[in-house]
């Protein structure tokens, strides 16, 4: 019982319980919005393991989203395999791809902007490969066949079914992040991010650590990809492997706060509803409203609060302390 009394356990537990009750009181639209918030929170949390904790910013995470989405959907549409199983196969496949990308890049010392460019190139190559592969629908993509309300096939009549799934996925991803961040693995990731040479000197196998982060992040992202496909019931090369999903995956982590447990979720919670409302208002006249907003927020955040919203909150909390320090310094002089 003592662990339950800690605010860091207690507050999220209450929040989770409240969120479980949401479908009982909210309208379909609010649930839809919540699904989007949770999905992007989940994806950003998955990205954050490699991008935030290990400091390797992938700009092509749509590669893993797409692998997950295409694997489960292909297996479902062509062979009738339930997405509940397909999503794990997708995660394994994405893990392998993540291992390959990680091994290739980190083995050859690719980092920083160069790593970002390789990941973009691979995701972009995936767009063109899938566009030309007719067995997975080519440029037209794949549609998830609707077989009625079938929870065993991850298909639901109402949005609440999807809501519970993504709520649990997000909660588990956050718990996993929290768990990792308090253990050797998390410490090793941060050590690699902060100073790779020093970490290596202290006996951290930096190559293995980075590859582990890449595999874990890729597999988690792929699970999100399978959910994405089931929820939107359509996937195409550009809408899962393209540049836009890549940006949307990393955006909320960057805006919320890199390398923090709650940053990605906070970023999604603040931004997704605004973007969706903007899209609702302006949707008829133009389709890029949310991207325009994301771009503006990205520029503003990078200019004025490069550590994200969590960083800003931290600063506010620190301010009185600083003032007191300043006063002390004044007294001394």
């Amino acid at each position: 019982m003592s662990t339950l009394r800690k605010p860091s356990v207690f507050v999220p537990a209450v929040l989770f319980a409240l969120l479980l009750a949401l479908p009982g009181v909210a309208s379909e639209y609010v649930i839809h919005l919540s699904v989007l918030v949770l999905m992007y929170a989940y994806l950003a949390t998955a990205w954050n393991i490699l991008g935030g904790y290990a400091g390797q910013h992938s700009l092509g995470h749509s590669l893993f989203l797409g692998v997950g989405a295409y694997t489960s959907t292909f297996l479902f549409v062509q062979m009738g395999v339930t997405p509940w199983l397909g999503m794990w196969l997708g995660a394994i496949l994405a893990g392998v791809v993540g291992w390959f990308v990680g091994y290739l890049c980190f083995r050859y010392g690719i980092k920083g902007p160069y790593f970002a460019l390789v990941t973009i190139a691979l995701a972009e190559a995936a767009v063109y490969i899938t566009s030309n592969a007719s067995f997975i629908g080519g440029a037209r993509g794949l549609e998830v066949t609707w077989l009625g309300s079938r929870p065993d096939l991850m298909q639901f009549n109402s949005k609440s079914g999807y809501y519970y799934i993504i709520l649990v996925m997000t909660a588990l991803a956050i718990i996993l992040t929290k768990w990792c961040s308090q253990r050797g693995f998390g410490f090793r990731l941060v050590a690699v991010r902060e100073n790779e040479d020093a970490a290596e000197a202290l006996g951290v196998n930096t190559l293995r650590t980075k590859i582990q982060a890449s595999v874990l992040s890729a597999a988690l992202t792929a699970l999100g990809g399978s959910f994405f496909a089931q929820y939107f019931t359509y996937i195409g090369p550009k809408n899962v492997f393209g540049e836009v999903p890549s940006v949307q995956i990393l955006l909320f982590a960057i805006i919320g706060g890199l390398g923090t447990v709650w940053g990605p979720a906070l970023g999604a919670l603040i931004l997704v509803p605004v973007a969706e409302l903007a899209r609702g208002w302006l949707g008829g006249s133009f389709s890029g409203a949310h991207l325009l907003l994301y771009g503006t927020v990205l520029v503003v955040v990078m200019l004025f609060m490069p550590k994200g919203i969590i960083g800003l909150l931290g600063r506010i909390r620190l301010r009185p302390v600083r003032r007191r320090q300043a006063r002390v310094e004044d007294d001394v002089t």
Partner: protein
Amino acid sequence: MIFSTTLLAQALVSGTLIGGVFALIAVGLTLIWGVMRIINFAHGEFLMIGMYIAYFLVATGHWNPYLTIFVTVPALFLFGVVIFRTIIHPILKYPAMNQIMLTLGLSLILQNLALVIFKADVLTVQTPYSRLTIPLGEVIVRVPQAIAFAGSGVAAVVLWLFLQRTDTGRAIRAASQNRDAAMLMGIDVERTFLLAFGIGSACLGVAASLMVPFYYTSPTVGLFFGLIAFVVVVLGGMGNFLGALVAGLIIGLTEAVGAALLPGTLARVLTFGIFTLALLFRPQGIFGGRQQ
């Protein structure tokens, strides 16, 4: 697969011609990278702005497409300077990833603003040159492409002479080789950054005017050319002027020959494959380190 030498020869010619334009676009990007180590993800969108300017001058003002250079170049230079002053300069001291995210945000803004203003329409304009061709044996040379190639070559030579022969050009090169040493020599490094960003953007003005007679204009046109510019810059070696020119031709040829030999749009996979291999095995570019 049907293989014909004519088809291949045609691909070689078109590839070389478009490669010249790729090279000019990439030179602008490599100049900016070389001088201030900023990867400008909005580079393609700058080109898009230039193309819209050129398009409207030709389509509604009935200008000669090549005369629009006198508007697109100063416009893009000015735009580059304003962008540098307002958002690039404040983040020069931040980590590279912040700069990437900022320019990525800028590219989203520009792309979607263009979508608001001009809609998603794909715009093409007919000029007296658009349909002209010169037969060269069995191969057809399209005149606007040939002019674009020649124009890009001239622009690259002018820029190269500027960097080699003028004091300002030498200052820019000095700042790119060693920022601190340049500052100690009395060079106003901030000003060279500003100039380099402006000139790098102005290259896109030239490219835009040269491309309008034969290429469509749309809000997303910058996506493709921006990515191609990265491929070329990396292949040529980040910050390497001559490398960018050669790599531009290589990628132009890869795209054209690939399109002739491979079904669908698989040629693009080849381009990104070369890009990945270049990043992995020769991150310093095909010619080794930076040489300017």
